[in-house]
């Protein structure tokens, strides 16, 4: 432990208050959102949060197999979050890991409140989230992408879902952590939000935050999600701008 610290001194916040990648504490990474990138899927979206690159695809509502999973009064949402073997520094086994299975579950639960599942009884809506390149905040980028893909598929939704991670590095509350900040920072808190109603659909925390830091972080997360929501709207509406002008 001490030897590793001797070798490499990590300064996550520089003297002038900037982060490892030169951002201000409340600044998001450059975000790129694209809708309808895949032909074969019913709905799809591509999202970049800095160097994090995610592809999401939605199929359905379609007949659910195995049939015993069907629910007679609503659609079942199934979600697969998967990291490509080439998405990380070291090759990742393509088999679903414990972490991926857990993230699939929390992402599904973050999206479920936004979808009118009761319109499609006995069917399934299948969401596939593929991490192409990972640099922290993949679950959040995944939720943002999946919500766009659902909207692209024309599935009725109450609201879009925007998501971002906040956390604490070097004692400073920061937004949209990158991989280094996530690993060596003190806390990481992914938040997903239905921006129109201010409803939080995902809230996890790894590390320690005091109560006041937590409140500050949550406030920052909500503001950041609103920013991302603006970009999500833009991405959906942009598909038509070219046609109209």
């Amino acid at each position, binding site marked *: 432990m001490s030897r590793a610290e001797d070798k490499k001194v990590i300064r996550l916040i520089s003297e002038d208050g900037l982060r490892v990648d030169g951002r201000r504490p409340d600044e998001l990474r450059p975000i790129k959102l694209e809708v*309808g990138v895949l032909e074969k*899927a*019913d*709905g799809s979206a591509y999202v970049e949060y800095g160097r994090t690159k995610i592809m999401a695809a939605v*199929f*359905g*509502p*379609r*007949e659910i197999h195995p*049939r015993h999973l*069907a629910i007679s009064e609503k659609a079942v949402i199934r979600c697969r979050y998967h990291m490509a073997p080439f998405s990380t520094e070291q090759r990742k086994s393509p088999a679903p890991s414990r972490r991926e299975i857990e993230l699939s579950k929390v992402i599904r639960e973050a999206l479920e409140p*936004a979808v*009118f599942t009761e319109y*499609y009884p*006995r*069917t399934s809506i299948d969401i596939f989230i593929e991490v192409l390149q990972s640099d922290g905040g993949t679950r959040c980028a995944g939720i943002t992408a999946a919500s766009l893909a659902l*909207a*692209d*598929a*024309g*599935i*009725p*939704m*109450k*609201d*879009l879902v925007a998501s971002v991670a906040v956390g604490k590095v070097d004692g400073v509350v920061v937004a949209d952590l990158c991989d280094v900040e996530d690993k060596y920072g003190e806390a990481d808190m992914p938040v997903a939000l*239905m*921006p*129109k*109603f201010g409803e939080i659909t995902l809230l996890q925390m790894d590390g320690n935050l005091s109560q006041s830091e937590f409140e500050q972080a949550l406030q920052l997360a909500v503001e950041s999600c609103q920013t991302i929501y603006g970009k*999500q*709207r833009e991405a*959906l*509406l942009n*598909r*038509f701008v070219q*046609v*109209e002008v």
Partner: protein
Amino acid sequence: MASKPRERAKLVVPGDELGVIEEFFPGENVYEKEGVLYAQCVGYASPNLRSKTVSVKPALGTPKYPREGDIVYGQVMDITDKVATIRIFGLGKKILSGIFTGTLHVSEVSKNYTESVLDAFRPGDIVRARVINVKNRVCQLSTVGKELGAVYALCTKCGGELVLKGRNLVCKVCKNVERRKFAEDYGGARI
């Protein structure tokens, strides 16, 4: 790609406010929450002042799945005397992204009395059918009607294509005559 927006139609995304319940009834793709109306999908919102409704016309396509009254295309999978199982792959003119399972009961094969489904269809046939009930686990289908029935079938003896000759289906290869409940435009269906 997108249809031309009508006048006063506004492009909206899910969750966009369209008005309050005192102004409008929620129309298609619109829902109400605590007295406020919101859009459910990406599309053009248009308030109708005459009927006092506001609805959203989807701009990115809507999910396709069989509903009561729909005309569907499917392949006959499994047949007993009483019932045929059909894999529905097409809805109207569109191909579904997944498949749905449907059943066709012998009483719904044709207007006339049919002894066994095997007298009307064989596994592998492509049929056009109407959805009559979706309340059960699988869609129930009907082929009663001139325009419904097999639209493409193969010979059970040699696998050659069956073609319509007068009122019969005849194998192109071995001239075997087969019994089918076929649609009036047999062989001419295009999806």
